[in-house]
């Protein structure tokens, strides 16, 4: 098909919109690729189109809508004096505003309290940013230390419980076996106490060092642990 530069200009929009039939499109491409005049024309129009489509959609100026409303429906009534105050209170008294204000106040109270502010003896210096930062930092470290200690205590208690449970679950057929290294097994005992069974003696020997360490680590349980230790020794 014989194709001319005038035809390129004529069909350019259809070509760019993808509305050109296949045979015409092939002829168009063949001519544009070979023509020094049409190649820059097509690339220039494609570039212009991409520039046009990249133009951003502008936001409406804020006053435009109000100006339109004023121009069509007339200017709004301006409220002054007590009527304006009443209108303001009516707007503020909405449930949504009240809920939002309460939430904001609660959040503020929590943050100030967490920062170590003393409500009984309030000082302006406590509200200084550097003091708030220092107090918050200290409170955070204290909370972390308490948490760590609590978890550690729990771990120790569970360890003791699991160890006692293991001892209680030992099979009864081992009751008569006596370890050779046990000092309680030695004959000639003269302290007047009735010798305990070898199993009980072994348990006391194993538990004592652990309980001593526990008593040092865990002051809360020290009274009870001292009792357990003394009981172990009397056996």
């Amino acid at each position, binding site marked *: 098909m014989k194709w001319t530069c005038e035809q390129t200009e004529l069909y350019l929009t259809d070509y760019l919109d993808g509305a050109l039939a296949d045979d015409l499109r092939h002829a168009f491409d063949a001519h544009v690729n070979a023509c020094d005049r049409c190649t820059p024309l097509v690339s220039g129009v494609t570039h*212009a189109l991409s*520039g*046009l489509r*990249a133009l951003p959609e502008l*936001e*409406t100026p804020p006053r435009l809508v109000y*100006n339109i409303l004023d*121009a069509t429906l007339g200017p709004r009534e301006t409220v002054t004096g007590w009527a304006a105050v009443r209108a303001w209170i009516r707007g503020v008294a909405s449930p949504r505003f009240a809920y939002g204000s309460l939430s904001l106040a609660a959040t503020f109270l929590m943050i100030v309290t967490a920062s170590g502010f003393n409500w009984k003896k309030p000082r302006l210096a406590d509200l200084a940013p550097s003091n708030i930062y220092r107090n918050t930092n200290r409170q955070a470290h204290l909370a972390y230390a308490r948490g760590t200690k609590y978890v550690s205590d729990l771990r120790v208690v569970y360890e003791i419980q699991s160890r006692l449970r293991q001892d209680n679950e030992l099979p009864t057929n081992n009751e008569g076996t006596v370890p050779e290294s046990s000092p309680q097994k030695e004959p000639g005992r003269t302290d007047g106490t009735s010798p305990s069974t070898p199993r009980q003696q072994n348990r006391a020997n194993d538990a004592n060092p652990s309980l001593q360490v526990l008593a040092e680590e865990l002051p809360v349980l020290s009274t009870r642990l001292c009792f357990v230790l003394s009981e172990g020794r009397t056996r």
Partner: protein
Amino acid sequence: MRRHSRRIFNICYRFTGNRTEAEDLSQDVFLRVYRTLGSYRSAHGGFATWMTSVTRNLLIDHYRRTKRDRITDSLDDAMPVVENKQSSARRPDEQALLGELSQQVQSALTRLSPELREAVILRDLQQLEYSEIQTVLEVPEGTVKSRINRGRIELARILQQMGVRPS
């Protein structure tokens, strides 16, 4: 109204290239729509198309009214384009280049004749169908296609004259 006001404001701005004029014209459009709302019939097409017709008529009126002012200002208008062209070498950032290209395209758009400009704006910026543009411009579809085609080619030529070339 907010949806329509944004669309109308964008059409006005792209046609005039001036924010204040676009704002005033948008306001005039809504005022005229408000006054002539009784004359709207669904046979004229959708409400948005009818509003676009009102906008177009106002823009053409405004163009004719301010034609004399524009002729005297045309020499002043050419200066910022030259300055933009010179400053382009100092701004390698892609976003800045894109913003500059937008400015240049907007400047080229306002140099098109009003018939071609309105056709290009409605087709390539507002993405209207040919049938809708035909309703707005009140010309046959063949004329619409021809104006869009000539408008695009003319825009590419103006951009080339401004030194904006495809990379």
